[in-house]
């Protein structure tokens, strides 16, 4: 159960065309699940002039057209009007079920040709490559948020034994599909991008495709399990797509 009382959520303006709903004060799977339930619920309300909901670690960004939320008497601002409308809906939220997001299995190849930083990461923690693979693929992650680039999923929580700050000098190009870790996250590069995370595997699945109705394979709140595959299986899947 989500069970938020009005005091659980706080609102703040994000300029004159957006606002933030603060759902929790630190990122963890429970907060992410609450955010997902609330964002889905708000989306179903089909509030007029609301253009985007952007779930993040502790907040949901709501982008809106202030002209659609004008108070004819001008006693209240469009911001206050929209906040009041969202608060009005909150009692219904008390009975909202928070369920786990769908589980996505992502095949990944940890072999050296796809794992540029595997040795460095293993070395930094005194682990073997096999141990890194076992730890990294042995967890069911939650998609904390999508951001940085179209379809880039921040997954957590990462096992503490794999935590490492970002590379001091980012790479100019990290290949699409690269699976990497940095700080308390692991993530997948949806396209060739510059980046400073430590690359330890690669998936042949396309994470982002602008021609699909839902362009991103993953959404905030989804759960992810990495399934190790060999280089031959990787190439077969890559050819098959």
């Amino acid at each position, binding site marked *: 159960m989500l069970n938020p009382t009005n005091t659980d959520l706080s609102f*703040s*303006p*994000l*300029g*004159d*065309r*957006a606002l*933030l709903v603060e759902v929790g004060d*630190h*990122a963890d799977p429970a907060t992410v699940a609450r955010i997902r339930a609330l*964002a889905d619920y708000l989306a179903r309300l089909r509030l007029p002039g609301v*253009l*985007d*909901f*952007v*779930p*993040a*670690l*502790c*907040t*949901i*960004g709501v*982008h809106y057209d*202030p*002209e659609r939320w*004008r108070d004819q008497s001008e006693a209240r*601002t*469009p*911001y206050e009007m929209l906040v009041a409308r969202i608060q009005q809906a909150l009692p219904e939220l008390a009975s909202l079920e928070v369920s786990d997001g769908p589980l996505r299995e992502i095949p990944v190849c940890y072999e050296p040709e796809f794992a540029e930083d595997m040795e460095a990461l293993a070395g930094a923690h005194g682990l073997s490559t096999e141990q890194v693979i076992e730890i990294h693929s042995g967890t069911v992650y939650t998609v904390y*948020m*999508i*951001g*940085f*680039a*179209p*379809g*880039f999923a*921040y997954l957590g929580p990462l096992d503490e034994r794999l935590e490492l700050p970002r590379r001091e000098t980012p790479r100019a190009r990290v290949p699409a599909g690269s699976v990497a870790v940095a700080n308390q996250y692991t993530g997948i590069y949806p*396209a060739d991008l510059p980046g400073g995370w430590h690359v330890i595997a690669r998936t042949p699945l396309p994470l*982002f495709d*602008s*021609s699909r109705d*839902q*362009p*991103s394979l993953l*959404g*905030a709140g989804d759960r992810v399990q990495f399934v190790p595959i060999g280089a031959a299986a990787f190439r077969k899947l890559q050819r098959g797509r």
Partner: protein
Amino acid sequence: MAAEVIRAGLLTTVQDLGRFGQQRFGVPVSGAMDSRSLSIANRLVGNGDNAAALEITLVGPVLRFDSHTLIALCGGDLGAVVGDKPLPMNRPVWIAAGSRLAFGRCVTGCRAYLAFAGGIDVPEVLGSRSTYLRAGFGGLQGRALKAGDRIEVMTGGESYFLRLREARAFSDDGFAAPKWSVRVDSERLMMRPQLVRFVAGRHWERLTPGVRNRFVGENFGVGAASDRMGYRLEGVELDKHSFGDIASEAVTLGTIQLPPDGNPIVLMADRQTIGGYPRVGEVASVDMPLLAQLKPGDTLRFERIALVEAQKLVHAQTSALAQIGASIMAAGSR
């Protein structure tokens, strides 16, 4: 068919008012940097505000028209000429088949918007025709125009604009335009330092009083690395403050971020969807078109206003645009 691209210019892209509804998947909004000029240009040729047009940056393209086409050019004055005659801005212009539109020296501003009656015909990607260069989708094959491209235009547009076409004979200049134009507040556009109003954000109170005072008291310069994603401001380093961890959260058009080097970044059309830097606040959305017309080296200063004021300004600007639209319709049917 409408035109062939002879030279592309520095950065000429297809843009509409942006791609909404996909930010939760990390897809930037993109769209015209100066959305107001795009809307006016579109209205001048009988299009809806959201029709796709060309955003032209500093050094414009050379286009050859292969059919009679109704166009309008708004925004920055980038020295547009047809043959050796200046192309009048801020009004509908009938341009004759065979005419060549070129751009010269940047006179004012940074970005011009060239609208075509009917709108540019490129496929919608995720609900918008805007080009997003970094990921290479939208617009014309996800990229800036290049020499040899063809600009195709959809049929349509208001019928009275088509009557306008019948009524006008092309002069030897290769174009025909009415004497009237939409009035532009060029003094405000040219103001330097440009006045940019902002609403304080949720980290404002956590900035030191010294930083807050300098932010509203000093002039900033637009840095050379500024682009469609963000304007990098220089001249006043705000602090090498340690702010602690900030949980990444949604950003918006005009969010003023404070990265560790202390030089603020204002997020523009191609901004990412979330950000983890401390924020000063958000630029009033009505002032974003003015900011978008600043080029590297130009100066600006910030003035803090309340949210209630910023949202009143939004309404005033919407009403002003509606009024411009009504005058265009009235002038066109005269």
